């Protein structure tokens, strides 16, 4: 029984039973067992549908997804360079707009999507993404964050959780913790810095269910340049059994270490309010991952204190690290 092939609408997916059935990123990729970043690919493609063009910046979701002469993509996809996520989307959006305006291709809404990993988006490509978010093109940049350079066998990035073991930050007999940077707060940084960008969000691909797909649709419906930062537990680099990849996302969100929210026209909307629901101890998140196996109690306490500060002391809890009150400098 053939069903009607639907084209994308920007309706909210109300429940799992009304989730679009058709895949636009399909089987036959080379991602890890239990890969949450593959879920990000699958879900954004499902949410956007066929009238979409995609660029993927260098990273594990480039190298793992295609192997030459074969592809898992149903929608058009093109590689872009590690730091070119933002500019690749601008280039496609600009080209399509010009060709439509000049009547060379039919005038229609085509979703322009770039995905970049944390190394590409939060580190190398942050300038290009900033440039993209200043434009008036309809485009969506998704930063899939597995907190490492996962394509080069797990190196630390600006988005790696404090204390994590990576091949660039191994624990040693003198230095237990080599990765001493606190995770870059990328989504608010982009929201704060680009007041005309109407939609910035964080998400986890599988928790809460449908949340990410609906955020993709909301971003496209609101239009203009938009940005979503996804939280992608990585069985390989974080060292947990692939069966737990969804659970790790859930535990991460519930511990408050990865807050879920949308920033719509400057308005912060918590999509999982860890304050009201009560945060579970960060330890429950950390102890489930081999990359934190070398941490001792005082390290865990430090991370917990930092997460507590995010929620208890920040002016916009979990989002913006400003402190309340307007101090006036005296000279």
């Amino acid at each position, binding site marked *: 029984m053939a*069903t009607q092939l639907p084209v994308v609408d920007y309706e909210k997916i109300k429940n799992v039973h009304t989730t679009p059935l058709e895949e636009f990123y399909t089987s036959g990729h080379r*991602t890890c*067992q239990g890969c949450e970043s593959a879920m990000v690919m699958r879900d954004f493609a499902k949410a956007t549908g066929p009238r979409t063009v995609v660029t993927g910046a260098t990273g594990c979701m480039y190298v793992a997804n295609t*192997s030459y002469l074969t*592809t898992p993509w149903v929608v058009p996809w093109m590689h872009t360079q590690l730091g070119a996520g933002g500019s690749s989307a601008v280039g496609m959006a600009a080209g399509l707009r010009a060709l439509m305006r000049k009547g060379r291709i039919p005038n229609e809404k085509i979703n322009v999507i770039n995905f970049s990993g944390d190394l590409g988006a939060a580190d190398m490509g942050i300038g290009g993404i900033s440039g993209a978010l200043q434009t008036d093109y309809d485009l969506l940049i998704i930063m899939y964050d597995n907190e490492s350079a996962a*394509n080069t066998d797990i190196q630390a990035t600006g988005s790696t959780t404090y204390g994590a073991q990576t091949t660039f930050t191994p624990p040693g007999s003198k230095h237990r913790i080599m990765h001493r940077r606190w995770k870059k707060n990328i989504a608010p940084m982009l929201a704060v810095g680009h007041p005309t960008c109407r939609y910035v969000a964080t998400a986890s691909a599988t928790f809460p269910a449908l949340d990410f797909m609906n955020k993709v649709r909301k971003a496209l419906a609101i239009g203009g340049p938009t940005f979503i930062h996804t939280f992608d537990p990585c069985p390989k680099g974080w*060292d947990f059994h692939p069966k737990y990849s*969804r659970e790790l996302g859930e535990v991460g969100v519930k511990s408050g270490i990865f807050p879920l929210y949308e920033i719509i026209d400057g308005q912060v909307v918590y999509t999982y309010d860890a304050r009201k629901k009560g945060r579970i101890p960060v330890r429950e998140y950390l*102890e489930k991952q081999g990359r934190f*196996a070398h941490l001792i109690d005082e390290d865990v306490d430090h991370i917990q204190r930092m997460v507590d500060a995010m929620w208890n002391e920040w002016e916009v809890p979990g989002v913006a690290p400003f402190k309340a009150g307007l101090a006036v400098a005296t000279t």
Partner: protein
Amino acid sequence: MIKRVEVNYRGIFQKNLGKYIGSDIVMIASRMGKVAFSNGRYSDSPERNGIPCKYFAFVSPDLSEEELEAECGAKLDIDEADVSVVLDETMVKGVEPWGWHGVRPINEKVREKGCLLVVARHPHDELLEFIGKKPYHYRLATLDGDASLAGLWVNKDDLTRERVLGAIAAVDPGIISIEAVEAHLLEKTKDEHRAQAARDAYNATLHRIKLVAPGEGIDWPHEVPVLPKWHEFEEGGVVVPAVKRGFELGPRGQTRNDAFKRGTTKTHRPVVRFDLCIKCTLCWLDCPDECFDPTDDGLYDVNYEVCVGCHKCAAVCPVPECIVMVDELKFHDDSSPWEAHKRNPAEYIKWAEEKKGTVRLNYPHVTGTGYEVTEGKTVPPKTTAASGTKAGSQA
């Protein structure tokens, strides 16, 4: 003379183990006065969880280091192996590391009189039900044990490494001798029991070598792709046609990447009791490999050709015993389980329960810390609503 050892392992889970074994062979051969080196197949890197990968070690009693490197170094793959070690027995079903490799027989590289050495729980004859036939004699040896799975940072020290070294000495002492293995382990670790583990494995393996006759094994069902010449494929900007769009309800209703399926990644496959399904959608919704096909009765068929055995569906399924991960070697084909269930629900349930058995492997969060074995229970068929038509309320 050159002795070539190939270590087939599961990406990431056995990455460190595979590399350690390669390194040990070099060090042991060196102490025997031989020239040796080891390397990995570079195109396997970066590895992915579960993807079949290879590590190599090369040993020669008479060649210079430069000649050995010239013969064996930096190749995409080796031409033949004196010993092909297999660290996870489910890889005997074939390995497909990349799109253009095709599904390759596990014994592809084993030379005449060479040895395929498998860490296995299954006996030789059962393994040969999956292994392609060769035109010449070779040996099949087994080393009793489970696939030793660990993660990138937390290793599993379960003596598999030492035991494999002992077994290699048993099947080809021309590579490393058991005496040199023992001496190496003792010197390096000062642990008597490590040397003993190698010696025990050596003794056991000597009795578990089967001579495989020409033509013994199966006709290999997979085609090995022939790569086109430079002028035989689309020129200009490395452009590849996308997967053709298409979806309909039912088995294989979703179009997929036909040229790379990588079902050989799995050690376990999900067996589904469709009669217990409450149609919560989670197995389908959370599958990172798009291997569940929605059907017109609200169930989800499994396409085992593309399932990589991540266990996630079994983890998210809220119904006990509805989705259970089962040893991949219990299955001889990838046909649709939903169709089998539709044909005869009672028979399918009986079949599924047989496959499931009662042994349940419970992996901890950090893979390298071991696993628990618990007993599963047999759930009786759910009344008359065989295909679970109105099961939604029973969550």
